[in-house]
């Protein structure tokens, strides 16, 4: 196609020198942090061309993370849905159980290079916290993880994992006690301990160079996918799909193929109870441009510019913003952004367990739910690659809770149901209402 050369420079080249993707991105931070952010940018630029750094990174990717991850043909799901041919990129098979560690290993090598001894991070689902605690242990560094109090509640196993790995987990009570509040608190720590501390941001958000740096560390997902699908199918996929919290697993999958015009891309946001209810985490489909956490992007906010709380059954998607590159790709219409409700995600979660023997992370279940909607209508030679961003072990309590609240109790261990029933009646959402609500969004 004649447009191929134009697009080569069009979509993958960002950001510019100030960290902007079109109007989005930038470095909207307090002056205290600016010198350090510039220093980080310098170190990162150095690492991009340094041969020894690349070799060391690849060594850890192979021997510590366990890369390359497989590109797996999901045969039973393909047959069940009866349309497109479905592959999973198995990021759930990484060490620590999600894509998050791809980024952590890269950033900790930079932290070491910059002479920092103390690592801080924010976490939502706890997967980034666990991955950060893991690499901090491996490199012998002090590690402090900020986690919202609500998230601590719903992701207990991960809190325990982080502690076992030697990290200090600090509960954040402000706001709704979720990811955004954890990020505020991490930023406050960073301003206070700017000399000693490296802030290891877990997604493609924050001030430049984080969005580009995290994307590049995650791009190993898309590079491998490209190679693997060429090997298996002799051509590029027709559609890529990934869930979006801040957007790092999606950017990692998409970026190496952004300039391949034939590859359609779909990012899946969390619609929580439904966009129309106002209780969701879909920044692109339900937000407006604004400035938060160091960058300009789409945000859930009031008309007066106050940030509103996100909602999702999945802690890893429960964030009122999105990486600035996604905001740009959205306005450029290069990537399609859709949203999936809690209810739809849970249904897809169950289907994946039963058909493929893979317990997906609730985050990944959002992209599975959209897959469920579109695959049946596509021809059998349409290739879809879905990023299985993580595994669902961490989500057992959340899923059990949800099923119990919605009267879907046949698989629950008796103890859970009985212990929870008496005091829980008031919290219960009538299953029919919720089903109706979700029905209406479709």
């Amino acid at each position, binding site marked *: 196609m004649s447009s191929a050369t134009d697009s080569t420079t069009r979509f993958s080249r960002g950001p510019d020198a100030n960290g902007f993707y079109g109007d989005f991105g930038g470095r*909207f931070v307090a002056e205290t942090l*600016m010198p350090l952010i510039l220093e980080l940018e310098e170190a990162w630029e150095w690492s991009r061309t340094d041969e020894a750094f690349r070799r060391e990174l690849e060594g850890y990717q192979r021997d510590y993370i366990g890369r390359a991850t497989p590109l797996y043909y999901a045969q039973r799901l393909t047959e069940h849905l009866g349309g497109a041919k479905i592959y999973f990129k198995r990021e759930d098979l990484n060490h620590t159980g999600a894509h998050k560690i791809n980024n952590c290993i890269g950033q900790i090598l930079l932290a070491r290079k910059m002479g920092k001894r103390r690592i801080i991070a924010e976490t939502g689902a706890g997967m980034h916290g666990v991955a950060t605690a893991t690499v901090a242990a491996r490199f012998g560094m002090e590690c402090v993880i900020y986690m919202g109090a609500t998230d601590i509640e719903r992701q207990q196993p991960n809190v325990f994992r982080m502690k076992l790995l030697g990290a200090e987990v600090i509960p954040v009570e402000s706001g709704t006690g979720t990811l955004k509040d954890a990020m505020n608190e991490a930023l406050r720590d960073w301003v206070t301990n700017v000399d000693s501390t490296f802030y290891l941001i877990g997604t493609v958000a924050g001030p430049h160079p984080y969005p580009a740096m995290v994307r590049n560390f995650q791009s190993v997902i898309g590079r491998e996918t490209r190679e693997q699908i060429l090997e298996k199918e002799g051509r590029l996929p027709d559609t890529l799909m990934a869930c979006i919290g801040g957007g790092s697993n999606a950017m990692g999958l998409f970026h190496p193929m952004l300039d391949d015009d034939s590859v359609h891309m779909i990012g899946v946001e969390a619609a929580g109870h439904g966009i129309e209810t106002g209780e969701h985490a879909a920044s692109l489909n339900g937000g407006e441009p604004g400035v938060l956490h160091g960058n300009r992007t789409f945000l859930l906010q009031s008309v007066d*510019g*106050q940030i509103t709380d996100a909602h999702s059954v999945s802690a890893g998607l429960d964030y009122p913003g999105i990486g600035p590159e996604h905001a740009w790709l959205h306005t450029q219409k290069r990537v399609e952004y859709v949203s999936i409700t809690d209810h739809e995600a849970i249904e897809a979660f169950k289907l994946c367990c039963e058909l493929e023997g893979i317990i997906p992370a609730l985050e990944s279940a959002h992209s599975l739910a959209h897959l469920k909607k579109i695959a049946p209508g596509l021809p059998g030679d349409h290739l879809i690659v879905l990023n299985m961003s993580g595994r669902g072990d961490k989500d057992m309590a959340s899923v059990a809770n949800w099923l119990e609240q919605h009267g879907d109790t046949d698989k629950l261990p008796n103890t859970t149901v009985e212990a929870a029933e008496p005091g829980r009646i008031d919290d219960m959402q009538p299953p029919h209402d919720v089903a109706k609500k979700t029905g209406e969004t479709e």
Partner: protein
Amino acid sequence: MATRITRRLEALKAEDRAALVTFTMAGDPNYQASLDTLKGLPGAGADIIELGMPFTDPMADGPAIQKAALRALKGEHTQQKTLEMVREFRREDQDTPIVLMGYYNPIYRYGVEAFLKDAGEAGIDGLIVVDLPPEHDSELCLPAARAGIDFIRLATPTTDDKRLPRVLENTSGFIYYVSVAGVTGTAAPTPESVERSITRIRAHTDLPIAVGFGIRSAEQAAAIGRFADAVVVGSALISCIEQADSVEAGTRDVHALVRELSKGVRSARLTPA
């Protein structure tokens, strides 16, 4: 044309004393009480008033100012109401400079040009926007300068000699030296180390230098006021509101502390160091 801020600071320089700059949050604990507090500040001894614009995610602020912002927002405070407060204040006081301080998003959502126009008309003299470093001067700093509103920048312990010129470049009114790397409300460093930093900054600029972060008492204000052009007190005043038994008591306690701080600032250069 000299702005109110410049005129005030020049007058105080002629008197050989530092300015007392107070910070309170608009709408905290409610609109009327924060307006009453505001109106009484000049009488209690505030020379320049910083008024916080509440924001849900004040990531450079400590617990005291975070809570103040949330109290204000809980009372449905808005940017419009902040401007309205200033308009009401200006009916009685045309001389005391008012600087709005906060984060960029509420201004961005209001619309930069519309905000500057309304702020200018309301009688606002300067802006401090924490998350707009000089790298983003085209967003608000330069438009503010064109609208005749001072854009006051923060310099911090991490702003080294290489970076200072960039920070100072488009700053007007005064420069605000944040004496510690940290969030608002953290403990202040020793006056000696602050004085060394001020000397370093003076080598780069003729702008008046205000010092803030961690100043809570008249003694501290006096110690800093010996060498700084202005002394900023925020969290200590906000804490008065948080701890008061009633809304009226909060206002009264703020004014009482301002009177004390003012004595500290006024006495600073009368006694030998």
